[in-house]
């Protein structure tokens, strides 16, 4: 089988003692694009950050495996080198470090010692991917995310995705704050990654991103769990009808985390 498989089983995640994810199962393989949708406060971004090893979140139960390897035992950088990637909703600024230097160092960190990417090859690849994303040349010499607009930060996250070519990528609300043109550009970038070797989990609040990146699977998250899964048609129905019909179907009154147990 081509590509990698990320397998999440019975995942429970806490922040400061509050359980946000409450037993979530999901499997993403190469060649598949999954979308997780859900209203605000249902645990979408927590899921993304926790899988990558964000220091604020504690995983209290369950497992995450990449091709059978225990991801939760890995350091954050080991997860990345194993082939995982997270495009962040709020990427950090790093002053004094150019986007280009950061990317080259990152690419080399993912390669064996003595097999560093040749400078010219790196520059060519970077130029090409920046063109794909319709990014101005000046990006490469600007300090990483410093003074970037919201839209520029998102493009920069996708640029990193295209440069690092992970096996499994999680995109955490890369569509938020993008106008329609930027949304198309970002979607083109993601679509250019599509192959049997690439699996992707798209976390989004809005269906419109999925008009441009067609998902194979759509999952709805409420109260820290996946409550419904389907294909691209599910996303379309959510766009047309909202989430209420799902809540009705499942007898959920408040979809947010922490609301179910008290009833």
């Amino acid at each position: 089988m081509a590509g990698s498989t990320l397998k999440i089983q019975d995942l429970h995640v806490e922040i400061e003692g509050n359980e946000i994810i409450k037993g979530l199962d999901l499997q993403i393989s190469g060649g598949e694009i999954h979308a997780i949708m859900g209203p605000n406060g249902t645990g979408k971004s927590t899921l993304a950050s926790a899988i990558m090893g964000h220091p604020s979140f504690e995983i209290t139960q369950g497992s995450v495996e990449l091709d059978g390897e225990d991801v939760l035992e890995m350091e954050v950088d080991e997860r990345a080198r194993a082939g995982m990637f997270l495009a962040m909703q709020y990427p950090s600024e790093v002053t004094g470090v150019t986007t280009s230097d950061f990317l080259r160092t990152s690419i080399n960190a993912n390669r064996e010692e003595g097999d560093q990417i040749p400078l010219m090859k790196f520059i060519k690849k970077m130029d090409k991917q920046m063109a794909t994303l319709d990014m101005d040349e000046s990006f490469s010499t600007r300090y990483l995310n410093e003074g970037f607009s919201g839209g520029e930060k998102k493009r920069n996250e996708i640029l990193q995705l295209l440069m690092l070519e992970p096996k499994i990528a999680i995109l955490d609300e890369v569509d938020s704050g993008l106008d329609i043109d930027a949304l198309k550009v970002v979607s083109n970038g993601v679509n250019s990654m599509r192959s049997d070797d690439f699996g992707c989990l798209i976390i989004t609040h809005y269906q419109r991103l999925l008009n441009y990146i067609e998902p194979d699977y759509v999952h709805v998250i409420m109260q820290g769990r996946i409550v419904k899964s389907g294909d691209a048609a599910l996303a379309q129905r959510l766009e047309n009808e909202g989430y209420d019909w799902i809540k009705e179907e499942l007898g959920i009154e408040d979809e947010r985390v922490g609301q179910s147990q008290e009833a």
Partner: protein
Amino acid sequence: MAVETKWTFDSETVKQWAEKQEEPSWLVNKRLDALAQAEHLPLPDPDKTSLKRWKFTSFEKIDAEEPATQSFSDLPQEVSRLAGEESEVQNLIVQRDGKIAYHKVEQELEDNGVIFTDIATAVREHSDLVEKYFMSDAVRTNEHQLTALHTALMNGGVFIYVPKNVELQTPIQTIFWQDDVKTGLFNHVLMVTEANSRLTYLENYVSFTEEEANVNVVTEVYGGQGSEVKYGAIDNLESGVTSYVVRRASLAKDARIEWALGQLNEGHTISENTTYLMGDGSYGDTKTVHVGRGKQTQNFTSDVVAYGKRTEGYILTHGVMKDNATSIFNGINKIEKGGTNSHSEQTGRVLMLSSRARGDANPILLIDEDDVTAGHAASVGKIDPIQMFYMKSRGLSQTEAERLIIHGFLEPVVGALPIEAVKTRLAEVIERKVY
């Protein structure tokens, strides 16, 4: 040869030594007077650092051996590499323990009447000029014991004189190399830029042994009206060296100086950098980086003092603290009465990489005039864990991510150095000091 100890530097010894070097009588007298003062003057008293147990006078002699040759290829590689390839060297003096080990000047200097020579030659050949400026105004002999000792025992350094209206295209570089730990180095850089001249200058202080040693450095810059100086320095003396460093500039009307100082000594260090904005419209910009590691204690003071009207004074200090090191960063912007319409700003940031290290940033604004603008910012902090998470999520190890963050943090000063090769050199020193 008999081992000399500190107070065998009596007046007779100093007199004989100075006369042997054919120094003019004004200097011999100034030395003897300074030596007498040194015996009763106190040590300097930098804010928040006690110097009681520091050894500033553990050297045995002040007169080092002359290097056997003065050819570039005979310099040790670790010294010559600081200047780059020989073919790229333009104006360079290398001194070993105060004695010339290499000297090259471009024709441009001679054509324009620029003086760039070792201080011992300068006091003989340009006695009047040196006398006019040496330890007279920007730094004075009687400030404390270490300035007095400096005047008495000065045994190395250079004199740079740029005549009126000369805009030097090629930079002037120096390498002050302490090789013999028994020889105390009292190094003096005297720089005079006459009206509307321009100069770019870069210096390196280096040593390679961890044995106990002393270095005492004074720089005096006298910036004439409308002159511009870019002054870059990389201090990288080894861990056994206790050093006292003071670099000051006194600027006339509309004169400018930009300091970019990489203060990367490994041993105990007091380092002061002061710009006196004497003339109206003068401009001083100080950028400094520091890295503290091991058990070293350092005290850094950056001062900009405005006397003139419409002056501008800027201080930017970035420090990285590791291990058990202690550093005090004092930044002082002073605007004297009469310095109307002047502007001053300072920023001090300290990045703590170890909970056992200590780093204090003390920004001070002293304003004696109403009609001015001034601002300051200071912070002491650790690496942001979310930033670290972000960088590691791209595959960078903790060490690599820290390395990038530190380089980025120090970049405002590294980037300000006026020569590309020197930037690379500073980045290397930082690299070695941080990891």
